[in-house]
C-alpha cells in the first residue's frame, strides 16, 4: 500500500510541476513588452553568433541603445539556415521578433504573403539614396520598401600571380574576356603524365555557377526578369555548351576527382594553389589571409562574354525586415535606419571585411585599409555596379528546379544545350503560379 501511495504521489507531483510551469510562463511570453523604465524592448534576431561577428553586431546594438532613451534592442542569435524557419513559424503564430535578418532575394515573397511589414510610412524619400541601387530595387514590392538592405557581396576573379609568372603571363593583366580566360587557363595548366597537378581554371569551381555564366553571356539577363521568361536564348545556350566544353577538355574523371577532393569545403583549391584562377566573393580574401600563406594574388572583374561586353557579376545579400505582427514597427524602423546609416555600416564593413549596402560607408571603409586588404575591398565595391541579384520571381518561385536538371544533362553530355534549354523553358512555363 505504501508503494502505491508513493507512486500516486510521484504522478501527481509530475502533473503539478507541469501545471506550475504552464502557469509561470503565461505572463512573460506575450511578445515584446515595455520594461520597467518605460522603454520599449525590441526583439532582434540575427544569425551572427560567431566569435567574430557577434561582438560586432552587439557593439552596434549597444551604440544604438545608448544613442536614445526610448528603445532597448535585445539581440538573439538564431542559427544560420534555420532563422527563416523560425521566422515563418513565429509570424504564423503572431509572435514574431521586431526585426530579423533575412535573405534579400525573397523579400518580395514575404511582402506578397503578408509576412513582413510595409516600411514606406517610416522611411523618408532620401532613404533610398544611401544604398546601392540594385539592392534597393530588390527590397521593393509594388514600389514600397518591405526591408532595408544591410550587407551584400559580389563575385570576383581571383588569380595567382606566382602561377601567372611561371606560365609567362603578365601578373598585372588578368583575363578580361571568356576567350582570354580559356587561353590563360591552358597556359596555367600543369600536367604530369595524364594527371593534372594544377588546373588553370574551371568555371564551375568557386562562387560563380552555371546559371551565373549563362546570365553573364546574356547581357546580364536573368532567367526570369520579373515574370518575363528568358531561358532559351542563343547566348545562354552558347554559355552552357561553353561550360560543357571545359569539362570535356579537362576530362570527366579529372573534374570528378577534384570535385571529390575539395567537396568537404575545408580545403580550398585556390588557397592550396592547385587552381590558378578562381571565382569568389570579396570576403573570400579573409580565407586567404587566415590560411597563413603568403599568397601573391590579384583580383579582377568576372571576364566578359565578348570583347567590349560588361563584366557581369552575381551577388546576394541580407536585409533587415520587420516581420508582420511586430508590436513596435515604428521603433523597429528607427532601429533599421540606424543600422543602415554610415556609422554603423562602416563599423560592420571594417570589422567583418564585408560588403555593406550603404555606399558612403563602403567607400569610407575602403579608404582606411591598405595592401591586399584594400585591393580586394576596393575591387569588390567597384564590382557592385555590374553586380546583379537573383530575386526569386513571384510567379515562378521554384523555377530553378526545372532548369537545374537540364543544366546537369548538358554537363553530363546527355543533351545539347539548345534542346535542354528549350525543354527547361517549356517546363518552367508549366509551373506558373497565379
Amino acid at each position: 500500500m505504501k508503494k502505491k501511495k508513493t507512486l500516486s504521489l510521484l504522478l501527481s507531483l509530475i502533473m503539478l510541476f507541469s501545471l506550475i510551469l504552464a502557469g509561470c510562463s503565461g505572463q512573460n511570453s506575450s511578445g515584446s513588452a515595455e520594461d520597467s523604465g518605460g522603454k520599449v524592448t525590441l526583439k532582434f534576431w540575427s544569425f551572427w553568433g560567431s566569435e567574430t561577428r557577434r561582438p560586432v553586431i552587439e557593439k552596434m546594438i549597444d551604440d544604438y541603445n545608448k544613442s536614445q532613451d526610448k528603445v532597448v534592442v535585445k539581440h538573439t542569435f538564431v542559427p544560420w539556415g534555420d532563422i527563416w524557419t523560425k521566422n515563418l513559424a513565429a509570424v504564423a503564430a503572431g509572435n514574431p521578433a521586431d526585426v530579423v535578418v533575412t535573405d534579400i532575394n525573397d523579400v518580395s515573397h514575404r511582402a506578397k504573403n503578408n509576412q513582413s511589414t510595409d516600411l514606406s510610412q517610416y522611411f523618408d524619400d532620401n532613404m533610398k539614396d544611401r544604398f546601392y541601387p540594385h539592392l534597393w530595387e530588390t527590397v521593393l514590392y509594388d514600389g514600397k520598401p518591405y526591408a532595408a538592405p544591410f550587407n551584400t557581396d559580389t563575385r570576383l576573379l581571383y588569380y595567382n600571380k606566382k602561377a601567372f609568372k611561371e606560365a609567362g603571363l603578365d601578373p598585372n593583366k588578368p583575363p578580361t574576356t571568356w576567350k582570354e580566360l580559356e587561353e590563360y587557363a591552358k597556359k596555367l595548366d600543369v600536367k604530369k603524365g595524364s594527371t593534372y597537378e594544377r588546373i588553370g581554371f574551371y568555371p564551375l569551381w568557386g562562387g560563380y555557377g552555371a546559371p551565373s555564366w549563362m546570365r553573364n553571356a546574356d547581357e546580364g539577363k536573368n532567367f526570369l526578369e520579373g515574370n518575363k521568361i528568358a531561358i532559351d536564348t542563343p547566348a545562354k545556350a552558347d554559355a552552357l555548351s561553353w561550360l560543357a566544353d571545359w569539362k570535356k577538355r579537362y576530362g570527366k574523371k579529372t573534374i570528378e576527382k577534384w570535385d571529390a577532393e575539395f567537396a568537404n569545403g575545408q580545403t580550398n583549391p585556390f588557397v592550396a594553389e592547385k587552381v590558378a584562377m578562381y571565382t569568389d566573393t570579396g570576403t573570400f580574401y579573409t580565407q586567404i589571409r587566415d590560411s597563413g600563406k603568403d599568397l601573391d594574388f590579384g583580383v579582377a572583374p568576372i571576364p566578359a562574354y565578348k570583347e567590349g561586353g560588361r563584366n557581369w557579376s552575381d551577388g546576394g545579400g541580407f536585409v533587415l525586415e520587420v516581420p508582420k505582427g511586430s508590436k513596435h514597427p515604428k521603433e523597429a524602423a528607427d532601429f533599421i535606419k540606424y543600422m543602415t546609416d554610415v556609422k554603423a555600416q562602416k563599423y560592420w564593413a571594417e570589422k567583418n571585411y564585408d560588403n555593406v549596402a550603404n555606399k558612403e560607408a563602403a567607400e569610407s571603409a575602403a579608404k582606411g585599409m591598405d595592401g591586399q586588404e584594400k585591393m580586394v575591398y576596393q575591387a569588390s565595391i567597384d564590382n557592385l555596379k555590374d553586380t546583379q541579384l537573383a530575386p526569386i520571381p513571384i510567379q515562378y518561385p521554384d523555377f530553378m528546379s526545372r532548369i537545374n536538371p537540364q543544366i546537369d544533362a548538358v554537363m553530363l553530355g546527355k543533351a545539347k544545350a539548345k534542346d535542354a534549354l528549350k525543354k527547361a523553358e517549356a517546363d518552367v512555363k508549366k509551373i506558373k503560379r497565379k
Partner: protein
Amino acid sequence: MKTAAQQPKFYQTMKFRRNLKHSIILFFLIAGSIALLTPLWWMISMSLKSPEEIAQFPPTFIPEKFHFSNYIEAWSTGPFTRWALNSVFLAVVGTIGSVFVNSLVAYGFAKLKFKGRNFWFVVVLATMLLPGFVTMVPQYMLFSKLGWINTYLPLLVPSFLGSAFFIFLLRQFMMTIPNEFIEAAVMDGAGHLKIWWHIMLPLTKPALITVAIFAFNGSWNDLLGPLLYLNEEHLYTIQLGLQTFKGSVQTQWNYLMAMSVMILLPTVLIFFLFQKFFIEGSNISSGTKG
C-alpha cells in the same frame, strides 16, 4: 602406415576451415569497423588541428601538431556551460517522462482488455505516419496560443503525453510477458498500478532502458524544437550553441568539431554503459524468452 595421399591436406582439416571462416568474418568485421570509425576519427583529428592545417592540401589524417586548446577555446566562445546544463535538464526530465508515461500506456495496450483496444492502438500508431514538418507550424501555433513560447514546456510536456514509437516498442515487449504473473498478482489483490510498478517495470527493464536511451538521445540531439520555441539565449541548448560555429561566410571547423566531440560523449557513454540492455530491448520479439 598411412601414405601421404591418405592424409587430409592441410586445407581439408576442420581446424583450417574453421580458421578460414573466422578470418573471413573477422576481415569483414574489421573492414566494417574501419568504414564506420573513419568519419569519427576525422572529426577528432579535425578538432585537434589548427585552422591553417585544416586548410592544407592534401589534408593530413593525423594532425601535425595536437591543439588540445581547441576544446577549451571552443567552450569559452559562448555560455556553453549554461547551454550544456540546459540540455542535461531537458534530456533528463524528458527521459523520465518518456519512460514512465509510455510504459504505463503500453501496459494498458498490452495487458488490459477493453472495448476498442485495437482501434485505439492503431490510432496511436497512425500518429507516427505524420512527418514532423507537417505538424510543425500547427503545433507551434498551439503552443503559442497556450503562451508556452520561450519556455521549456513545448519541449518537455510532449514527453509526458506519450510517443507512438515508444508505446509500440514497450507494448510488444510486454506482450511476451506471461499473463500468469499478472493473474497471480490479481489473486493477491494487487491493482493495475501496482502490477505495473512491481511486475511490469522490473520485467521490462531492457525495453525501458532502450526507450530511455532513445529519449535521451532524441532530446539531446534535438535542434528544431529548441530552435523554434526558445527566444532567449540563456535558455538555449548545446545543439543551438554548436550552430554558432557555422556562419554564412565561414565555418570554424576546428571549434565545430571539438564541440561536436564533446556533445557526442554523453550519448556514446550512455550507449556503452547500457548496450547489453539496448540490444536486448530493441529486439521486439524477445522479451522474457531472451
